[in-house]
C-alpha cells in the first residue's frame, strides 16, 4: 500500500525523476477466466450430482477484483421419506479482496470475498413415502412425480480462498463459501431442499459451498 501511494504521488506531482532506492515490481491486470474442475469430477463419480461452473474475475485495483461465476447444477436429494431433484442455472456476482502481500512480482492471493447469488431452477419430487409411523398399517412409496419450474433462490455469500499462479498466467484456486439465504421459492406442498449454486438448504436458511478452479489470466496491462 505504501508502495502504490509513493508511486502515485510521484506521478501526480509530475516531479522530475528521482532515484528511488527500490524497484517497482509490476503485476498484470486483466480478465481471468476459468472453470471449476471439482464439479465435473464429482459429477462423474456421483449418481446424484451433475454440475458445471465457469468463473471469471477482473482486477480493478491492487487488491480488489470483480468476480462472477455462472453455472448449471442438477442435484438429487435422498432423504428417509423423500427423493427430490433440483435442476437449474445460477449466477454469483461480487468481489474478492486479496489479503496477501506478495513478494517481488509474485501474484498469489489469500482472498476474502462477498457474492450475491441468484438461482433459477426446477424442483421435482420424484417419490415419497408418507411418514405414517405405523408398523401396523405400513405406508407405501408414492411414485407420482410432481415438479414445478421457474423457482428462484436469492442469497449472499462470504468466501475465503487462495489463488496460486502455477505457471505464467495460469492460476489454481480453492475456496470455501458460507451462504445465507435471502429467499427461496418452494414447490407446492413441498420444500426446496437444495438449490443450484446454493447446494443443500439447511433449516436455518444457510448453506456451504466450495470451489476448486483452474483459470487463465488474459493480461490487459501491467501496473
Amino acid at each position, binding site marked *: 500500500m505504501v508502495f502504490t501511494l509513493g508511486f502515485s504521488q510521484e506521478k501526480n506531482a509530475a516531479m522530475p525523476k528521482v532515484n528511488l532506492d527500490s524497484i517497482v515490481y509490476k503485476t498484470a491486470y486483466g480478465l481471468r477466466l476459468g472453470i471449476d474442475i471439482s464439479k465435473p469430477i464429482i459429477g462423474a463419480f456421483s449418481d446424484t450430482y451433475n454440475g458445471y461452473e465457469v468463473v471469471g474475475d477482473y482486477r480493478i485495483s491492487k487488491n480488489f477484483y470483480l468476480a462472477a461465476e455462472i453455472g448449471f447444477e442438477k442435484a438429487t436429494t435422498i432423504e428417509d*421419506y423423500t427423493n427430490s431433484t433440483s435442476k437449474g442455472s445460477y449466477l454469483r456476482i461480487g468481489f474478492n479482496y486479496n*489479503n496477501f502481500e506478495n513478494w517481488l512480482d509474485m501474484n498469489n492471493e489469500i482472498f476474502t470475498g462477498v457474492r450475491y447469488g441468484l438461482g433459477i431452477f426446477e424442483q421435482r419430487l420424484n417419490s*415419497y413415502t408418507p*411418514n405414517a409411523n*405405523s408398523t401396523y*398399517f405400513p405406508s407405501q412409496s408414492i411414485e407420482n412425480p410432481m415438479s414445478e419450474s421457474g423457482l428462484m433462490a436469492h442469497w449472499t455469500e462470504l468466501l475465503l480462498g487462495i489463488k496460486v499462479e502455477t505457471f505464467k498466467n495460469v492460476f489454481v484456486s480453492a475456496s470455501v463459501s458460507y451462504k445465507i439465504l435471502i429467499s427461496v421459492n418452494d414447490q407446492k406442498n413441498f*420444500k426446496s431442499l437444495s438449490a443450484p449454486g446454493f447446494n443443500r438448504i439447511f433449516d436455518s436458511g444457510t448453506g456451504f459451498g466450495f470451489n476448486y478452479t483452474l483459470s487463465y489470466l488474459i493480461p490487459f496491462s501491467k501496473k
Partner: protein
Amino acid sequence: MKRVSVLLLLCLAIFYNCEKDDFCTKNPVTPMLVLRLYDATNRDTIKSAKFLSIWAEGKDTISGYQSVTKDSIAIPLNSLTSETVYHFKINTLEGNLANNQIETFTIQYAPVHEFVSRSCGYRVLFNEVTFSSNNTWIQEFTPSTLTTIDNQNAAHVKIYH
C-alpha cells in the same frame, strides 16, 4: 490480523449453523386416533375397559392392546384406504371366551398428505372423519364426525360404556 479475524468469523458461522435437521424429532408425525373411555351413567368419570384387545379387520391384535385394562386408546388409521374397521374386545374375566364382547368400530375419512420437513417427510391427515359403531358394549360415543384429525394432543372421541 485481518486474515485471522475473517477466519474466526467464518468458523463461528460454521459452528453456529451446525443445527441438524437430519433427525425427525416430531413424534408422532402422523396422528393416531385417540379414544377416551367414560362411564355411561356417570358421564364425567373415566372408566377403564377390562381385558381389552384391539385388532383391525383381517389383522392381528395390535401389540400393546392384548387383554389390557385401559381408559385411553391410541390406534393408527390405515393411510392407504379411506376406511379402517376396528374390533374392540372386552371381557370380565381373563380367558373366559364365552363372555367376550366385541364391538365393531368403523372410521371413515379422506387421507391427505402434508409436507412437514426434510427429515420427517410427509404426514397423513385424516379429513372428513365419520365414526360408526355396532353398539355392543359401547353405549354411546361423541362426536360422530370430525372435520380433521391433525394431532393427538387430546382425545378425538369420548366413548361411554
